[in-house]
């Protein structure tokens, strides 16, 4: 292991230690604004359907390489926020649950099969899925929270999920890693099938 990797591993271990000793936060007593950020941060990671799809976006981006690896995670939060805005404004969108489940199936299949469409097609597909996810979040957002901090937490969590997918996807450089990623894609697709079944039930 090179010195650089060793240093990186040490920092990661230190980061984990710090995260594992989290204490009670008593911040922002005036208007519950910290609760707004944390609530917003928790929202995208609270639903497995969203988590699977967003991590899959990162995995797929890592498989496709540059520029998709950064274009997809840039496009997804912005289009998702557009969907969220439509949801907040009360603009109806039919078949949201099916759209979300389909996103898990198709993104999972894309990772499993290492599909390599033109960049515009990949971005368009991811953008369409993002609309469904954003709209679902937008209609679910609670009233009375700090809108700005909630929005920032919400977007940051989404970006972190993409980053997690990209981080996992870096194993694509090894042949065993490619196999693991394909298996992960299959797992995401199976999860999508489960969500369709649940939506139909």
């Amino acid at each position: 292991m090179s010195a650089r990797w060793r240093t990186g591993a040490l920092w990661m271990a230190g980061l984990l230690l710090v995260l594992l000793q989290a204490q009670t936060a008593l911040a922002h007593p005036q208007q519950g604004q910290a609760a707004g950020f944390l609530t917003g941060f928790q929202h995208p990671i609270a639903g497995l359907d969203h988590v699977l799809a967003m991590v899959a976006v990162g995995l797929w981006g890592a498989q496709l390489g540059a520029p998709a690896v950064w274009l997809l995670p840039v496009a997804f939060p912005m289009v998702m926020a557009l969907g969220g805005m439509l949801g907040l404004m009360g603009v109806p969108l039919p078949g949201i649950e099916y759209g979300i489940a389909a996103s898990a199936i198709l993104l999972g299949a894309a990772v499993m099969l290492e599909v390599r469409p033109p960049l515009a097609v990949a971005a368009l597909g991811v953008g369409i899925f993002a609309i469904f996810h954003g709209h679902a979040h937008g209609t679910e957002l609670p009233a009375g929270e700090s809108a700005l901090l909630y929005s920032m937490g919400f977007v940051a969590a989404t970006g972190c999920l993409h980053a997690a997918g990209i981080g996992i996807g870096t194993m694509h450089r090894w042949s065993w890693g490619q196999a693991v990623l394909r298996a992960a894609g299959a797992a995401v697709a199976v999860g999508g099938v489960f969500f369709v079944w649940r939506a139909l039930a």
Partner: protein
Amino acid sequence: MNGGRASRMWGWALAAIAAAMSPTPAHAHLNSTGMGPVYDGVLHFVMSPEDLIPVLALALYAGLRGAGYGRETLFVLPGAWLLGGFIGLAAPATKGSVVLSAIWFLLLGGLLAANARLSLRVTAALAALVGLSHGYVNGSGMGPSMFAGMVVVGLVGAVFVVSALTAAFVVRLRAEWGRIAVRVAGSWIAASGLLLLGWAARAARGG
């Protein structure tokens, strides 16, 4: 960027994330720091994301465009903020607008995400607009106080320091991934702006 510097930057970034995610009891948003009006202004800026994020976005954008843009923004933004603040102090009391914040988030975040090629003059004009509008809202929202001018001075000092450090950090970035990370931050800011617009629309229709 050589390996040692990249490794150190990773280290600092991870340490910063760790510190940010390790909550400790905080006593934020008090009316006074007890350290005088200048520090009250500094604290107000640091604890107000509707002020802080546009400054960060503008400084990140200026840094991404180069040192010349960073220098221009560094003096235009705090100068305009100071002017807007003192105009606001003399104006009737007003409250900040969520829609205005959303528009700034959307505009500045979008420019940053797209790495838009604005001219130096347009960037300076943008910095002046950001400074004037935010400074005005800050100044007019303070209410009558004999120390309000000093609060504005503290606030502007914080704007100067934050924009200087942020732009300088980005100007030095040479690694492609680092510059891309800055643009991703822009997309997050723009996305937050879009959601804010949605919140404002929902509030307008009584949701």
